[in-house]
């Protein structure tokens, strides 16, 4: 959990965006692989016994756990922000005793800022949902990493690949990738792992939508187009395009009908058919 400091908020350095956070799982995967590779390619290989390798893998796992824990920090950070007491709450503290039995989330939305209050409540709910989904996803990732490492350890202990066949670090690494990929595919085909990804994506969507009213309010205040304004423009343009396509199709049908009519008249007319310059142009 990030400690809040009112003078200097310590933000995690990777809070560039929610989408980035959504991809934290992939980032963690990449770190796992990079770490695994660094263990296998460490220059000091003198005492390369299974015990040493095991210890090194444990170290990788520990680093990985730390990385996964950090991936939740951003969510916690947002949640903490949303829960920071406002100055008005401190002013109202003497009265709070009377409302102790009346939790904040049961307050009705009253007054000129009731819409904003409702939006903030929605934001808090979606933040809670996002945090739950993110935790579940990282738990799935942890289980995946545990399973990969456990299978890899087991196969090394069973002598696959054997010392005689493992001729290079590259072969050990390739084998590590094979085990990881096999295990990962098993997770992908499970019920829980894809469900965790979907839940995270849905929770992120809810969060993104809950942030929009506040963002739109700010944009509106600054005199900039809001999402609603952009969407209205997009819809309007789409209607115009459709109208134009329909008109074009109708005109094409009319031109074809007229051509056919003209051709029929020519065929019906006595004497050799004549071709005018404009007919040629039409056909070209």
């Amino acid at each position, binding site marked *: 959990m990030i400690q809040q400091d009112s003078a200097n908020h310590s933000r995690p350095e990777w809070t560039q965006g929610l989408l980035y956070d959504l991809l934290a799982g992939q980032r963690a995967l990449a770190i796992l*692989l990079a770490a695994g590779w660094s263990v296998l390619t460490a220059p000091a290989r003198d005492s390369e016994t299974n015990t040493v390798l095991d210890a090194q893998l444990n170290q990788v796992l520990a680093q990985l756990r730390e990385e996964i824990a950090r991936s939740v920090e951003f969510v916690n950070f947002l949640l903490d922000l949303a829960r920071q007491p406002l100055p008005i709450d401190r002013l109202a503290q003497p009265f709070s005793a009377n409302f102790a039995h009346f939790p904040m989330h049961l307050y009705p939305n009253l007054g000129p800022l009731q819409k904003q209050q409702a939006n903030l409540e929605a934001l808090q709910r979606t933040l809670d949902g996002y945090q739950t989904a993110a935790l579940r996803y990282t738990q799935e990732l942890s289980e995946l990493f545990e399973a990969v490492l456990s299978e890899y350890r087991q196969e090394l202990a069973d002598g696959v690949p054997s010392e005689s066949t493992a001729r290079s670090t590259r072969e050990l690494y390739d084998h590590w990738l094979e085990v990881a990929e096999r295990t990962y595919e098993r997770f992908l085909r499970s019920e829980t792992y894809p469900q965790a990804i979907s839940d995270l*994506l*849905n929770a992120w969507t809810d969060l993104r939508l809950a942030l929009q009213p506040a963002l739109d309010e700010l944009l509106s205040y600054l005199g900039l187009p809001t999402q609603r304004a952009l969407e209205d423009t997009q819809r309007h343009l789409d209607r115009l395009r459709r109208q134009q396509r329909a008109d074009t199709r109708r005109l094409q049908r009319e031109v074809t009908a007229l051509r056919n009519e003209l051709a029929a008249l020519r065929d019906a007319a006595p004497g050799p058919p004549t071709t005018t310059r404009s007919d040629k142009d039409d056909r070209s």
Partner: protein
Amino acid sequence: MSDDIPLNDPLQLQSKLARTLRRARELQPVSVGSTPARDLPHPGTATLYRYGSAEGVPLLIIYSLVNRPYILDLSCERSVIGALVRGGITVYLLDWGYPGPMDRFQRLDDYIEDEIDCAVDSITARHATERVSILGVCQGGTLAICYAALRAERVRNLITLATPVDFQTPQDTLYRIVRHVNIERLTQALGNVPAIGLNALFTGLKPFQLLCRRYLTLAELDADDQALQAFLRLEQWMYDSPDQAGVAFVQFVRDFYQANGLVAGSLQLCGENVNPIRFTGPLFNVYATADHLVPPAAAKALANLTGSLAYREAELPGGHLGLFISRHAHRRLYPTLVEWLHQCSEPVLR
């Protein structure tokens, strides 16, 4: 290769990798698209290209919306378009381009009615024919099947490459992930679906292969500029993805993946029910045995749905991209497709 990198000498690997990375930087940017193309007047938002002489057997390629079509013409050595042109086919390609914010409400119906149908109009007029052969690739194949079902009288032959039809086969990992996603809300939040999100999804299906193994093989291209260029071309293509028009994306995920509309018979497009049985012309369905995006069963399901009186199927070893760039595909598949197209095509009247 592993013999070259001894167990206790990872430094050698690092050194080779560093050399290759430096060389790769020098070779970038790489050129893509090797076959000369001419863009033709087209009323829609897509671009219609023609490859080869105007006198050949016309074939319209409908490519997927989620990637760029130049994978079909990546280099002279492995160009699907080049192989078809050399076989006497006049290739037309609909390039969807990069949908922008103003394309957010573009529907699949628009892609079919205003893009594919207009392209077919243009080709039939140029070749003085009533019907045109269509080659659909991946998601483009699904659109091609829909078009052939809706406008059967306008399609001469249909070829489908790595085309999903049954979106809920047990091996379909993509389905497992997207089946619980609230796709309407997602696009409500995002507008168009950003390519970076889709790339993350696709990479997430094979992270170890695409993020680890792939880049490690760079060291093996240490002294081979041609192979390194091929690597860089593919690398560029893999992540040069367009954003997805929001409404069309919702339709595809909801109606094809989540409802499995083609198999269930519930799919509605352009105001009509889409029933693949309506197309009775020759159909050549090709799929790859180790395709992780379109499992063989997803593609083979077409056999039970089509009304084609001359259905043919071909299975190629390898993965999704192997169908377009593998040596095997270029040696075996494309000559066969060219021959099949000539056999099944009416004489050009012009």
